[in-house]
């Protein structure tokens, strides 16, 4: 039974590649998501996932279904939207999230238009929802490189990110420009979204970033705990989702993200902190008579 369940991950090359890709992404995307939630930027990830689309489309138009070209295009588009939104918010004094919301919509519309001009709807589905069959060894190298790079950069700016989340003025007083760190962080996020779109699709890639992070918040109050749990949830979702996708003949991206979504729902209901159950328990306790505690 266990053998039947897990053997596809070993027997088939495309499943092996998808597994490695999923685990590599799960190692770095959830920690980024933890920082996004802590910085109050949960929806920015979603907006950026849409923003990469025109770049992916241009890559597709120029080089066909070539993953490096599409990823590179996506990266450029994502960084462009992040940069433009940042500049507009600095120049006009508007909040950055409204600028990002505006630019991602422009970008998304441009992307859909570009794909519909040249490709078929099948291509659009591939780009939007991903396909594990698309992970060839080139794509795998790309994903693993992105994960490694993200891990190194994240380790390098970790302390800055933590201190800056709490008190941006402290670092500015020390001569560290918060804007540069923020930009680097957005860059990492875009990089991971473009790496994730091959297995998960542009719209789903952000799910592996956010859902493990938001689920982890119901179980831990410590940063290390949040990161570790988010990574674990990401990996469980990736492995489980791939197997579900294989055995039930369903698309991989939605399987992985839905599994993460189930874990999120379970955590929201029964998690240790702030979950529905935890709140219910806390509200009931004072109602007990004093001698009920023994």
């Amino acid at each position, binding site marked *: 039974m266990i053998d039947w369940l897990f053997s596809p991950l070993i027997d088939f090359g495309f499943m092996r590649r998808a597994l490695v890709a999923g685990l590599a992404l799960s190692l770095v995307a959830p920690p980024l998501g933890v920082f996004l939630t*802590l910085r*109050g930027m949960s929806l920015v990830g979603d907006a950026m996932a849409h923003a990469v689309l025109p770049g992916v489309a241009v890559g597709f138009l120029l080089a066909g279904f070539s993953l490096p070209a599409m990823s590179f295009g996506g990266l450029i588009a994502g960084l462009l939207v992040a940069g433009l939104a940042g500049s507009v918010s600095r120049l006009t004094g508007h909040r950055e999230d409204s600028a990002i919301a505006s630019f991602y919509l422009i970008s998304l519309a441009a992307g859909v238009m570009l794909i519909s001009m040249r490709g078929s709807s099948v291509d659009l589905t591939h780009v939007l929802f991903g396909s594990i069959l698309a992970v060839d060894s080139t794509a795998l190298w790309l994903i693993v490189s992105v994960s490694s790079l993200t891990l190194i950069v994240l380790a*390098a*700016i*970790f*302390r*800055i990110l*933590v*201190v800056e*989340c*709490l*008190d941006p*003025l*402290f*670092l*500015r*007083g*020390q*001569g560290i420009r918060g804007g540069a760190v923020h930009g680097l962080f957005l860059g990492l996020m875009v990089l991971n979204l473009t790496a994730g779109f091959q297995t998960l699709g542009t719209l789903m890639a952000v799910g592996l970033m956010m859902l493990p992070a938001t689920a982890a918040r119901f179980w*831990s*109050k*410590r*940063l290390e*705990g*949040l990161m570790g749990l988010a990574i674990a949830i990401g990996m469980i979702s990736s492995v489980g989702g791939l197997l579900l996708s294989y055995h039930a003949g369903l698309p991989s991206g939605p399987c992985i993200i839905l599994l993460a979504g189930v874990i999120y729902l379970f955590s929201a209901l029964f998690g240790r902190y702030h979950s529905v159950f935890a709140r219910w328990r806390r509200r009931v306790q004072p109602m007990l008579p004093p001698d009920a505690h023994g």
Partner: protein
Amino acid sequence: MDEPNTLLTLESLSLAQGNRMVLEGIEGHFEAGTITALVGANGAGKSTLVQGIMGELRPISGRVDCRVPNARRAWLPQQLALDLTFPMSVEELVMSGCWPTHGSFKRYGQAEYRRGQAVMQRLGLQAFEHRPLGELSGGQRQRALLGRTLMQEAQLLLLDEPFANVDAATVEVLIEVLQDMAAKGAAIIIVLHDHDQMTRLADRILHLERGHGTWSTPARSGDSPPPAETLA
């Protein structure tokens, strides 16, 4: 006028927020070992002056001459300005005061952890060292924030209403620690509202009103106050 232990000098400093002139012709010397109270009504330009001193705002005219390097300058914002739900423990916050010497990469050594312990002990935080900031009271948070500046060995310390939302016991601890820092040679500038705290703590007062600054000395019962000087 320029004494050797002057850490910060303001020379006919004028500052603006956007198009609005907020402060004009502020003069002042801040010596090592003195505590200056910065007072004035809401909107009188206290935060603007602090921003100017920290280099956040460029002067319209005049200048800020600060002899304290960035690493030893500390700015303690009001608690409300901080996101204290961030999952960080008291110890981690205090240890982040090692930034000037350790930056983003360097591992904290035994010596730093011992110093951190001593700082937390000094502030009465040893029982809370692993407690997340989100679970602390206002007073405990303020102690932890001051702990960071102690760790940083700040020589120029600016505080924005450090005694707001803080219990009486904490106020005593904070005053003691601040006086101790001043005695060890730091220049401290505190935005204050409370008159009693001002007379207890401050050596000098910079009063901001309608864009101009007036220097005075708090009247203290008991000892004979030095003569007040008016510079602007």
